């Protein structure tokens, strides 16, 4: 009879060993009947009946000695994260079903607040079209109450998380580094706002692990593993987005792709997926149609963020008359207005328009992108 607590600690410890593939670790645990048992074996025993080469076994045992589960738990506690293993009831069910689920999952935030997770992945160098589409899909998914899963990387990932957060949705970011490391650094604020909006940051790597290149393909299988379906926005043939798509297929999950111009390098990946049978995505309806019925169970047709709505309504009613008319002009315009547009529409001098814009911008009702002001609510 194995001691549950000790077994969890042993799994956290095994998980922290970076030199070994997860499926091998899982095989060893199965072979010896528990993670604790694996820890008690010597390099010789592991290579004799575990089928490891003597070299790998030696490496593994020496790396093991450097890991300390208590330290990991302490580090997680300090930064407000929790560590789950397959022995917990809290381990995400979908992820547990894949071939090689992580032995331990570090989570900041509450995964229970997410519904029907869908992965959105894509290149770090998206085109305008990719950015626009990713933002639109993420927004629509959020509005329908689904959870957007992505990897917090530059490009499409950032856009998907950002659009989801801004439309009040729940989004999960799966990191390729430990939860104590923010990579890329410019997304620190985004990570914070994800948590503020009931989202979660997820990683299988020890708290202080750096963003090693080898981490990212492993991270990708968790993105697809957490999700019912994965949508590929843009990416060339050899891109992380396609690795995620392959992982999703291996895990028996749905893969969808956004079609793109045939002369766009960034659309070669998704177009190839469509040719090979992936579902074509135009809008959120295509994504929802591909989800299994149980994913949609209990899901309200549209999830209203009443708190945010109320706050926004409150902010709007407190505005000065000038700011209200400016806000009206911007909302009524197609694709936002710049200062000139505002000056022209309202017939105001620049100074008056500036005051109204400042008021709107500091109350987060509008935001500036290039020279245009757009509403955020």
């Amino acid at each position, binding site marked *: 009879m194995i001691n549950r607590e000790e077994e969890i600690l042993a799994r956290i410890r095994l998980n922290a060993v970076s030199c070994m593939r997860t499926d091998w670790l899982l095989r060893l645990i199965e072979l010896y009947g528990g993670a604790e048992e694996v820890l008690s074996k010597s390099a010789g025993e592991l290579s004799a009946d575990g089928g490891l080469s003597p070299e790998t076994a030696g490496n593994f045992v020496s790396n093991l000695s450097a890991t300390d589960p208590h330290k990991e738990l302490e580090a997680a506690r300090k930064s407000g994260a929790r560590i789950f293993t397959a022995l917990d009831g809290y381990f995400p069910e979908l992820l547990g079903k894949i071939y090689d689920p992580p032995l331990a999952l570090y989570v900041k935030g509450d995964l229970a607040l997410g519904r029907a997770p869908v992965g959105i992945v894509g290149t770090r*160098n998206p085109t305008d079209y990719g950015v626009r589409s990713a933002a639109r899909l993420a927004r629509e998914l959020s509005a329908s109450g689904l959870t957007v899963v992505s990897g917090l990387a530059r490009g499409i990932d950032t856009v998907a998380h950002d659009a989801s957060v801004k439309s009040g949705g729940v989004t999960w970011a799966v990191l390729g580094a430990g939860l104590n490391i923010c990579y890329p650094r410019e997304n620190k604020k985004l990570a914070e706002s994800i948590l503020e909006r009931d989202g979660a940051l997820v990683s299988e790597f020890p708290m202080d692990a750096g963003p090693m290149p080898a981490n990212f393909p492993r991270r990708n299988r968790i993105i697809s593993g957490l999700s019912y379906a994965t949508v590929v926005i843009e990416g060339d043939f050899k891109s992380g987005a396609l690795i995620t798509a392959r992982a999703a297929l291996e895990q028996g999950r749905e893969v969808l792709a956004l079609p793109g111009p045939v002369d766009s390098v960034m659309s070669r990946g998704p177009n190839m997926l469509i040719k090979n049978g992936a579902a074509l995505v135009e809008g959120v309806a295509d994504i929802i149609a591909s989800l299994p019925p149980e994913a949609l169970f209990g899901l309200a047709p549209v999830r209203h963020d009443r708190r945010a709505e109320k706050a926004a309504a409150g902010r709007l009613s407190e505005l000065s008359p000038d700011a209200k008319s400016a806000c009206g002009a911007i909302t009524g315009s197609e694709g936002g207005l710049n*200062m*000139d547009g505002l*000056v022209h529409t309202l017939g105001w001098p*620049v*100074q008056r328009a500036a005051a109204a814009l400042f008021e709107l911008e500091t109350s987060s009702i509008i935001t500036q*992108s*290039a*020279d245009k002001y757009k509403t955020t609510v």
Partner: protein
Amino acid sequence: MLSKLHTSGLRGIDGFNIRVEVDVAKGLPTYAVVGLPDAGIKESKDRVVAAVRNSGFDFPVKKITVNLAPAEVKKTGTHFDLPIALGVLAASGKVKKEAAARLETAVFIGELALDGALRPVIGVLPMLLSLKQSGSRKIAIVPVENSAEAALSGLDCLAAGSLKEALDWINGAAELSPCRPAERELRATALGDFSEVKNQAFAKRALEIAAAGSHNVIMIGPPGTGKSMLARRFASILPPLTDEEALEVTKIYSVIGLIKSSRLITERPFREPHHTISDAALIGGGTNPRPGEVSLAHNGVLFLDEFTEFSRPAIESLREPLESWKVTVSRVKETVVYPARCLLVAAMNPCPCGYLGHDVRECSCTPLQVHKYRAKVSGPIMDRIDLHLQLSPIKFADWEALPRGETSRTVGERVAAAMAAQRVRFKDSGIRANAFMGVRELREHCRLPEGAAGLLETAMNKLGFSARSLDKILKISRTVADLDGSPEVKKAHIIEAMQYRALDKTTELVAK
């Protein structure tokens, strides 16, 4: 026999006195010029010989030595022809004894044609101005075609058409006509008027602020948004050059021979060098140093279109002129300082393809490319640019319906009033305009109004302005207040000023 005459030399944009000594002695016929002459002066020998002969004199077949004193300074220019030729004639007895005193009272400047006629030379104005400043009461003899320019110096000048005429004047055989300045032209409007720019009220307002406070501007926008059109009309809202400024500008143009019809330059210079320009051509330099585009834009506007396409060394070389309004060109033998107090108007596309943020056209750049493109302009340069201006194209429907805007004259009057307010404020402090205020002046002249501290805090927290950009915002708000005729900076001024620091905002999470 020996003769001595006066002439002048150029160092940078200033003249200095040069003595030409010619000795004609018995001996083997030789001709030597000493006193660090450059190749141009050594070549003068053949011109001098031919001009003397073709003026009806014999060229002495003797040992001739020409010395240019002070001997340790390098000399360049073709204007030594006239004094050398006159020196040779005087030393060979062609000047009457009683007229010899007249040689002492004059300064001779001019290049000779082979037939003895005088050709115009460059740098007449700076040479004569320096002479005048040094308190000289001499009379300047200059080529006819330089006469109007020479007259600007205020020195007594006479125009000579040929070597013979100059010699006759020395001998008292004929008089030369005094130089008169050309009539002032009405202000040139070749670059257009502000009212021709439709819409773009925001951009025009920004340029008005830039003009009033001498703030440098960068305009960012897709092709066809009127960046160049606005920049070309920018000089038209600046007040006309003062007499002192006009002389400074004309001096610089004289040095490189760019004065048109010898007139005083009264319109603000507008220089628009192409982006393939070298750093030396932009800020000045060369083996024989010449002023660069920044100096040619002195007291005017330097417009750098496609700013990011300029070479990195060229962009970086702007640091000194933008900081200290002069350019120092150092060579082994000499150091030359050119004034370069110009307003920089830079223009660039928002991204490599140019269409980021465009309403209709699609941008094909990745965020990384955009980032790299913008990073071409380094921090220290961006730091010297106060106003950021983002432009987008206007739609045809709008364009047709739009009324004409204010004329340059109306805007220029406000600008002039704001400038006058600054002159009073910065009296005796050595600062010329708001843009040049340091931390101390900022504290003194931009006291925060009631409630503005909270405003700035909100701006920092919500819009992501840094402490550094707040300083810039205060500087700009001072100019906005001046345009408003307000002695204090008010909240509304600060809020408007924030509109011109768009690139400092960090509210955008997504790279695009």
